[in-house]
């Protein structure tokens, strides 16, 4: 298991080489699951980092980010197994 929770509908990836640390994604994220990393990337920018859980996959961080490839948002392909354990997840 990684730190990615199975219950999340979304997952954020930040390419730290492309991020310029503007912070717009952090401001935009509705559930506030993006943080600014303390360390600097090779170009001297602090970079955005996913807090590890809670992403809804809404995609707004992608839209407000000025760098073309800094942000990738993923969504769970199948609905998560929820309240009825044992039941087959359906697409």
């Amino acid at each position, binding site marked *: *298991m990684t730190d990615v929770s*199975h219950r999340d509908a*979304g*997952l954020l990836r930040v*390419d730290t*080489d*492309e991020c*310029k*640390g*503007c*912070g*717009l994604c952090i*401001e*935009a994220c*509705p559930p506030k699951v993006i943080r600014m990393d303390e360390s600097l990337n090779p*170009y001297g*920018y602090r970079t955005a980092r996913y807090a590890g859980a809670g992403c809804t*996959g809404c*995609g*707004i961080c*992608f*839209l*407000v*980010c*000025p*760098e*073309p*490839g800094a*942000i*990738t*948002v*993923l*969504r*769970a*392909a*199948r609905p*998560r*197994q929820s309240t009825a*354990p*044992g039941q087959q*997840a359906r697409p």
Partner: protein
Amino acid sequence: MSSEPEVTWEIASSKPASFYSTYERKDELQHATHYCPGCGHGIIHKMLAQAIDELSIQDRTVLISPVGCSVFAYYYFDVGNVQAAHGRAPAVATAVKRSRPGSIVISYQGDGDLSAIGSAEILHAANRGEPITVIFVNNAIYSMTGGQMAPTTLLGQTSTTSPRGRSAAHEGYPLHVSELLATLEAPVYIERVGLGDNKQVAQAARAVRRALENQVRGLGFSLVEILSPCPTIWKMSPVESQRWVRDVMEKTFPLGVLRDHTQAAQSEAVPIPPPPLSMIPGIVGVADAGLPAEMTGDADVPALDLQVRVAGFGGQGVLLLGEVLAEAGLDAGLEVSWLPSYGPEMRSGTSNCHVRLSREPIDSPLVTHPDVLVAMNEPSLRKFCSTVHPGGWILYNGEASPEDCDCRGVHVLARPFTQIANNLGDARAANMVMLGALLEIAGNLPQSSVDSALGRLVRNPKWLALDETALVCGRRLMREARAEVSHAG
């Protein structure tokens, strides 16, 4: 927890395919843009690229980049690209759209570019209802040059040229371009959006997509003005500048749709295809000029790809020489361009022209490396001899090319053409003797096309007869010169 099924992840949002994978502007930093952190241009680029992806128009999109911070947009968008002179993007977009009606043409401009130096171009493009898409990035300042006042600068806003803040008394009021354009009849869609918060950004993305979709559907002129942060020049953090758009800028520039005639335009929209080649003689009024079969489009177009520079004194017939050549090419069904370049004097001074003939569409009418240089005097020879393509020809009006002229790697035909023409009856026919020599090089151009071009351009029968004789003489001089070369070799 092992009872939970494996989650597979799908990409929901990632770098749009309409961006290049790497940007070759510099050796380093090939994956990041040149924009400052938090710059609105980057956000707008992304919306635009995403809309191009969604509409599947990448392979027919042409982006016109402006002068301003977004001057390098062509390094990022993997589409057709043209970079225009300051403010001229709508004029360039007009040309591209009209010559390639099937293309999707985007004029991308800053507020300095569009509302100051380019105010005439945008006004007339909108008034003509050019069916293009304009992305108008308003950050209320000249950013690239370091923060001078723009026509869109807010009252009270400081800039390097309004250091105490813009005042209506001194600098006038902020120009509301979108409102101005919305008074015109032709535009079909004008909307002002902002990048002030999530909701605004989402609306901006929808507007950009709509403005592009309107063009795909052939509806007409569409413009989206986007209030866009410039953290660097505004001297604010990216988040502060975003808020400034929403809390301050928007008060001067209210958001909303200023024009929406898309419904009405839809019923009239008929994308205009270019006329078939066979109709062009009729359209330009030369239908009864005895055109050869080539013009009807079914005969073979001659194989020819020629770039010519003609230069001399004004009055030597430089432009006419080029015109006859271009007209003859047109007559033969070729793509042609003829670009004159001369000073203000009509009879003295120097003049030159660029001529291209090709079976393929011609991208630029400029001829920087001619296959053939026709130098009608010595200054022209000196000026252009080093530009001639290796293996090409120089036709020089003189006994011999001066010793200090570097004509290595090219063929030279130097003859006293003025003298020769004088012997034929008039020194002013030297241009046609030289054209005759040139036509021998462009051997594939049918004589019938040359005849009809000459007949259209030279109306005086006395001159026509002399020019025809001159052409024959020039052809002979070139054939003799070539024979000499092959004998010698």
